Structure formats: structure tokens, C-alpha cells
């Protein structure tokens, strides 16, 4: 049954003492001893139990038919797939009980493709289980390590090769080769690392509210910008903002940009809310707002998701990505969740025509933290 004559790959360490007794650190497991054999012996493979198909030709014939049927189903599925591929229009929908309204071609093609695959799969497995030999075969293992000669031969060849190449005798070659191999990849790394993108410069700390495009190398000069609705691009009158309302706001001119519109939007998005001034606890918040109308950066100070959920009753802003919660009555202080800093406030007022307008840019970098944001 098994190859006891082959060299044992993982034979037990010779027992020195019974279990529980001290074992030296350089030894492995120790097997207990006693008057009787130390351990049970492997009883060997149990006798083989023949299957139905091994005993009678009837059962074998039946299995043959079952396998053939499954292969037949596969062919049928494949043919149906081809027919339905041409027969069903891609826009057609169909109601399937339990799924609802769904794309007819997706359903039909998926099911027929599955039929084609599963027929072959189940057929082949059934064939193997019923008709192919099921008597277990024993193959012997050999230790993974090579013979001692082979190992020594390998080391010998390697060191001989080195000495044949005069590696040891010519240190100048050895060290210059090491240097050259160590350095040759540097140009490639420099090319990739250097050219992937520009330096951020100040652009992480600037937004369109600074007066215009704020990409790397651009330093806009501040001009007051009207607050406009996103996406309507219309200015907002203070009187339009009733208590409890929320506006998604961008600086005027941003939506008219030809280039880098999304990049500017990702930094300049603002939420505009109106609260009863009496419930606002922060004097700075009141000062930077206008009659209880306050504007805060919409970009979460955690990892930058838009803070999209406003609870009107509690005046909490909630970020849907990681649930940082900001209290608008307390200058958007973090009251729960993984963000640390409050949302930066945008100082606003109204211009001569009664439209809301910024009075200064954000006074700190908006959005997620970065190493040099405090500088």
C-alpha cells in the first residue's frame, strides 16, 4: 500500500523522553514512549468499495446516458445562445419573476451561455465520478532537498565560474561592475518619477475663490466672486435663501472654464445654508456670514468626499463616505467620525444688487490634510 522503503522525508525526531519532559530547543516534536509501541501504526488504505457502475453494466449504461444527456444540454445551450444572439434586440426588456424588468438579451445570453458551460462541466464530472477508475493510486514522495553531491556540485560550479572569470583576482572589475549594475536603472526611475506630474506648488492651498484658476504655477489675485448655483450657474439673492434651505454653490466663472473645470470644482465646491442667527454659537461664523446665511467648503477635511448630507433639524452635515459629522451651528466643528478639522468657512456678504458674494478667499487649505498644509 504505501512506500515504507522510501526515505522518510519528515520522519519523527528520535524520542529522548516522554511528552511533557523538557525538550532541547534544537529539537522538534517528541513522541512519547511506553512498554507498548509508542504510537499507532498506519492501518493502510481501506479496501476499495466498488460503485454501481463497476458492478453492473446496467448502471454503467445509465451513467453513460446521463453524461451524454448533459453534453447534449450543453450543445443545446450553445445553439440557443447563437439563435437568441441574433433574435433578441439589444434594447428589448423582459419581465422575469423574481428579478423584475431586465434586459432580455442579457438574461437570455447569460442563461444559454451558462447552459453550454454547465452541461460540459457537470457531464465531465459525472463521467469521472461514475465511469472513470476510482481506485486510489499511491505515488511516493521524495525529499525536496537534492543529494549532497548535487548541492556541492552546484556550489562548486558557481565558485569555479567566479574564479574562472577571475572575479576574486580582479577586484577592480568586481567593484566597477557592482557600481554599474547598481546605477544603470537610475535614469529610468528618474524619468518616471520626474515626469509623472508637476510639482503641486501652492495649488493645494488655493481655490477658484482666490480670484480665478488655481492650478500649479497660477497665483490668482483676489476679486470678490458671486456665489452661483451648481449646475444652473445663476447668482443667488440673499432673499432667495430661506431658513432651512441648502444650496450647492460654485464661484461665478468656474462653470464657464474651458479647461480644468473639474479640477477647480473639486476644490471650490461650497454649501450655502441659512440658519436662525440665534442658534449660531460662533461669533466668527456670524461675522463671516450674512444674516445667518453661511457658506462652508463642501470638501470633507477627511479624505475629500463631498459632504453631501445635511440634516435640517440638527444642522449637522454628514459625509457619506466615512460618516464624519460637522455641526453647522458650531462653525462646522467635527462632532463625530474620523475627520479632525472643521470645514473651512467662506466669508460672504451681499453686493449692490443684493447677490451673495465672497469677501475673501478661504483662509486655509480646503479638503484632506497634507503634510505642509499648515505652512
Amino acid at each position, binding site marked *: 500500500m504505501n512506500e515504507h522503503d522510501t526515505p522518510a522525508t519528515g520522519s519523527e525526531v528520535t524520542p529522548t523522553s516522554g511528552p511533557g519532559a523538557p525538550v532541547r530547543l534544537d529539537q522538534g516534536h517528541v513522541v512519547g514512549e511506553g512498554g507498548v509501541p509508542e504510537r499507532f501504526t498506519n*492501518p493502510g488504505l481501506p479496501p476499495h468499495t466498488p460503485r454501481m457502475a463497476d458492478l453492473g453494466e446496467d448502471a454503467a449504461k445509465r451513467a453513460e446516458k446521463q453524461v451524454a444527456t448533459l453534453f447534449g444540454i450543453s450543445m443545446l445551450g450553445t445553439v440557443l445562445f447563437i439563435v437568441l444572439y441574433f433574435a433578441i434586440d439589444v434594447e428589448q426588456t423582459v419581465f422575469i419573476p423574481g428579478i423584475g424588468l431586465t434586459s432580455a438579451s442579457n438574461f437570455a445570453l447569460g442563461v444559454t451561455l451558462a447552459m453550454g458551460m454547465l452541461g460540459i462541466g457537470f457531464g*465531465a464530472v459525472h463521467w469521472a465520478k461514475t465511469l472513470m477508475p476510482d481506485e486510489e493510486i499511491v505515488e511516493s514522495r521524495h525529499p525536496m532537498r537534492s543529494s549532497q553531491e548535487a548541492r556541492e556540485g552546484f556550489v562548486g560550479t558557481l565558485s569555479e565560474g567566479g574564479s574562472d572569470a577571475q572575479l576574486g583576482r580582479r577586484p577592480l572589475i568586481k567593484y566597477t561592475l557592482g557600481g554599474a549594475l547598481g546605477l544603470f536603472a537610475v535614469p529610468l526611475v528618474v524619468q518616471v518619477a520626474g515626469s509623472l506630474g508637476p510639482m503641486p506648488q501652492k495649488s493645494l492651498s488655493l481655490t477658484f475663490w482666490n480670484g480665478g484658476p488655481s492650478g500649479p504655477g497660477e497665483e490668482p489675485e483676489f476679486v470678490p466672486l458671486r456665489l452661483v448655483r451648481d449646475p444652473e450657474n445663476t447668482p443667488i439673492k440673499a432673499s432667495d435663501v430661506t431658513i432651512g434651505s441648502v444650496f450647492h454653490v460654485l464661484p461665478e466663472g468656474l462653470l464657464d472654464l474651458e479647461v480644468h473645470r473639474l479640477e477647480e470644482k473639486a476644490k471650490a465646491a461650497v454649501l450655502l445654508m441659512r440658519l436662525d442667527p440665534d442658534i449660531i454659537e460662533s461669533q466668527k461664523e456670524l461675522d463671516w456670514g450674512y444674516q445667518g446665511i453661511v457658506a462652508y467648503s463642501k470638501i470633507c477635511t477627511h479624505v475629500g468626499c463631498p459632504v453631501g448630507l445635511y440634516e435640517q433639524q440638527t444642522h449637522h452635515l454628514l459625509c457619506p463616505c466615512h460618516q464624519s459629522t460637522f455641526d453647522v451651528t458650531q462653525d462646522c466643528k467635527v462632532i463625530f467620525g474620523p475627520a479632525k478639522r472643521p470645514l473651512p468657512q467662506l466669508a460672504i456678504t451681499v453686493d449692490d444688487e443684493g447677490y451673495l458674494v465672497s469677501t475673501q478667499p478661504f483662509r486655509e487649505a480646503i479638503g484632506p490634510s497634507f503634510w505642509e498644509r499648515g505652512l
Partner: protein
Amino acid sequence: MTTSTSRPADALREGDSTPTTPSSATARKIGGLGGWVDDRTGSAKPAGYLMKKVFPDHWSFMLGEIAMYSMIICLVTGAFLTFWYVPSMGLTIYNGSYVPLRGIEMSEAYKSTLDISFDIKGGLIIRQIHHWAALMFVVALVVHMFRVFFTGAFRKPREINWVIGSVLALLAIVEGFAGYSLPDDLLSGTGIRAMQGFVQSAPVIGSYLVYAIFGGPFPGELIIPRLYSAHILLIPALLVGLFTAHIAIVFIQKHTQFPGPGRTNDNVVGYPVMPVYAAKAGGFFFIVFGVTALISAVVGINPIWGYGPYDPSAVTACSQPDWYMGFADGALRLLPGWMEFEAFGYTISANIFPGALILLPLVYIVLGIYPFVEKWATGDNREHHLLERPRNAPVRAGIGMAGITAYTVLLFASGNDIMAIKLDMSINDLTWFFRIGFFVLPPIAFWITKRVCLSLQRRDRDTVLHGIESGTIIRTPDGRFFERHEAMLPEDQWILVQHDAVAPLELEAGVDANGVARKTGHLDRARARLSHFYFADAVNPVTPAELAAAHHDGQEMESIEASGGPGALEGEKEPEASGPTRR
């Protein structure tokens, strides 16, 4: 030097002989084609060897197969998808057949994904198979890893393959994230946005790294083409290369097998590749493909048309990544904000980068080095080809379950918003529950698992010592009752007693043979402690001596097994076992 002997026309050289003709027509046909190849490659011998190779059989060995087949399905369907997908962030106006989005400005990437879903016949089924197979790939890979871990299949000589497997698992996740981001819809765009925040939080180099990855300010126009190149070229090349090495090593080392009668550390008992595994494993590929196709036909996944194009100022509620990113996302939700601080004017975002940048590689580094830690603790340098039953390594099982528990807490934490809505609970309470749970639950899981394993081992000992409970109650002439226990078949008994007895490594005596004090280093002491942690309360298998003692006298057995049956407690002689029965 001419020879005078004539030779047949097809023997070019002297001594050439006509090959012997195979007996049957089929054999001749195969031999003909095979012979043509063999004449040029000499591959008959290795190919014949491979076809005769024996593989052991166990349902859990299919898990790796599912992972392998899911990967192949992804490669095939992914190649299809590249024919239609346009990896560009250039803006265009949609006017395809999905009415709600007509006239809306969007990226070429999103538009082409919509076209695959609505305008290309069969495109949706291929896209859905690709996504489902990707999810299945990561699931199967993780469960396969569990199997390898809990059965100790990573032990010598398979440490290299365990490390390769860990790298594969990490790459699979990165590959998944890159692919998930390609449609450039609102949901995946939000994922990229969060990734941008993660990278930006890296100390010192964060902002430079972000501008390098995005080629400028977020979102830029380069991230989709770059993720595309990573998704279809760089990572798949690594995946396929490492996967090939993984499989080749399995072939070279031969598959491990579960212990059982006739199975030893020096053999492999199972079925040959030709024909059994060719049919079973080959058929199984079709089953995995078929099941994936069926799921894709009936269950929609990632309906990107519902989210709309990416817009950095818009967001969907309940933003969720694919499941395999969940644990990192959950960690981010649990890390409290106060961990961010400023030092010398620089901001250190300790509330972000530990979960976002460190956790993912850390998990796989810890996994990768585990075999070496365990080997150091056990001092076991033997080759192991027989798997361990998980219960026979209680501490390892405990460590595994503790790890799984910590991972699961983080995974559930990433769904805290959905749970809060569905269960009508406070999200703050849930977050606190997970925060505390992350530290409290893994040790509890460790303890419970270890206790369960030890109890199962004791149960095994009990079964060997007392036989199988037959359910037959016997009444003795003097009116006493006992249950008849049946002796086990040697084959059944072997599974319960085959494993090695273990004991913790002890420090050597303080003095050597000459009475000179020996130095015990810190390392030795740490090692002894670790070994105690593993084996201090080990339950060892029944030895023949113990079994003999149990059979001879119930009293003596009582002294061996504290947990004897009620009969034993009364000091009653163990009833004679009846003949073996096959369970």
C-alpha cells in the same frame, strides 16, 4: 566507407529502425501527432509523467481551483472588454440608447462603459461576468488562504508558495480596485477621490505623490489611462507570472493530503491527472464559468448607469467600495479624528494613513511572515506533506480566527451607514461598538477557538479510549444499565491518533555538563515563551499504552481521562466492545 547492405528508404542512417507500430488505430493517431512534437521537443517523457501525476482528493482543494478559474474568466472577458472600452477622460456628450443620460456631458470612459452595457449586444453579460468573476476570484482566494492556514499547509517546504500566495492576494485587491475605477462613474470616481485623500495624507511626500499619480491636480485627465495600463498590463503580468510559479511549485512539491489510513508523509494517495483530474478539474472550469454566467444573467452588478458621470462636487449616499476594499474603508471610519496632529507646522494625519496606506500592505506582510514565526516557535524543521486537522493546532486556529474576527469587524464597520439605516440604530453607537470590538473581539475569538479545538481533541481522545457510543443500552442481570460502546475500525481510529504529540520547547538547564553556567539569551527565552504559548496546554493523541490501559481497567482509564463517562465514574468495568462496525 560505404556499406554494402541495403536499407529501407525511410531510414536515412544506418541503424535507423522503423518505429514499432502501435496496436490500435487511436493509439496510432495520437502517437503520430505526439510523435511529430516529440521528435522536435522530446516532451513525451515529461508529458507522460505529468499525465500520470497523482493528486489527492478533498473538497477544500477546489477553493484554489475556483480562484484560478475565476482569474482565467477575468482574463478572457477582460480581453473582450478592451475592444470597446475607451480609457479616456476626454469629455463628450452622451447620446446612446440609455435615455435618462442623453445629452449629458461625461468622460469617454463612462460613455464607452454605457455603450458596452446598452448598445453592444452581449456586452452587458460580458461586463457582468467580468465583475462577478473578479469578486469570486478574491473570495475564493481568501477562503483558499484560510484552508491553507488552518491545515498548516504553509509549513516547510511550502513557505515560498505561501509568500507567493500572499503577494497574489494583495495584487488581486489592487487589480480589483483599478478595474472598479475604470468606468469613471460617480461611485467609482468617489472611490478615486478617497484614494487621492489617502495618498495625500502620506507624511512628507503626500502632496507630491498625489500630483505624480494624477499628473497634476485631482482629478486631471490621466488617472483613468494610468489605472487602465495598470489594470490590463502591469498587474495582470505580475498576477499571471506569480500564479504560474504558484502552480509550478505545487506540481514540483506534490499536493498535500489530509491524514488518513494509507496516507503518509512519504506518499500521495489520489487519482491520476489522466483521465480523472483532466475530467474533474477541466469540468470544474466549465462549472465555475457556467455559474458565473448564470449569476450574471440574473443578478445585476455595479449598475453604473444609475450613478451618473463623475462630478467632484456630487456624491451618492451610502458610498461603498467593492467588498475586498471594505476592511481598509472600515478602518478609516473607525480611526478617530483626534489622531491627526501638527508638529513644527507640519500636519501628521494619523487618522488616515494608518488605515489607508499602512493597513493593506501590513495585513499581507503579517500573513507572509507567519510561517516563519510558527516555525521558530515550534522548532520544527521537518518537511510536512500531511495536513493537520485544524483542531490539532489549537493556537494556530485561534490566531487565525482572531485575525478573521479583526478583519470582519473592519469589514462590517465599512457598512456602518447601511447598518444604521437598515437596523434603525445610531451610527455613532455602531461606530463605537466596532471601535471597541476591534480590540475586544479578536482575543475572545482566539480564546473560544482554542477552547473549542482543545475540547474537540479531548473528544477525539475520548472516542478512541471508549469507542463509539452505540445508543444501545444494556441491562445487566443485577439491574444496572450501561451504554454499549463499539470498538472503532482501525481506519477510523487512525485519523484520531495519527498526529504527533507535542510539547513546548524548554530552556536548557542553567549549567552545562561541566557545571558551568550556560548563557540563555533574550532570544532563547522569548522563543521558549512563544513555544509555551503554542503548546503549554496541548492535548496529545492517545498512545497504544493509554488505550491498552483503558481497555484493561475502567479505574486505570479514569486516572488517564478525567472526563470519563458515567460508567467510569462508578468505577465500573468497561463493557466488552462488540465487533467493529463501519461508520
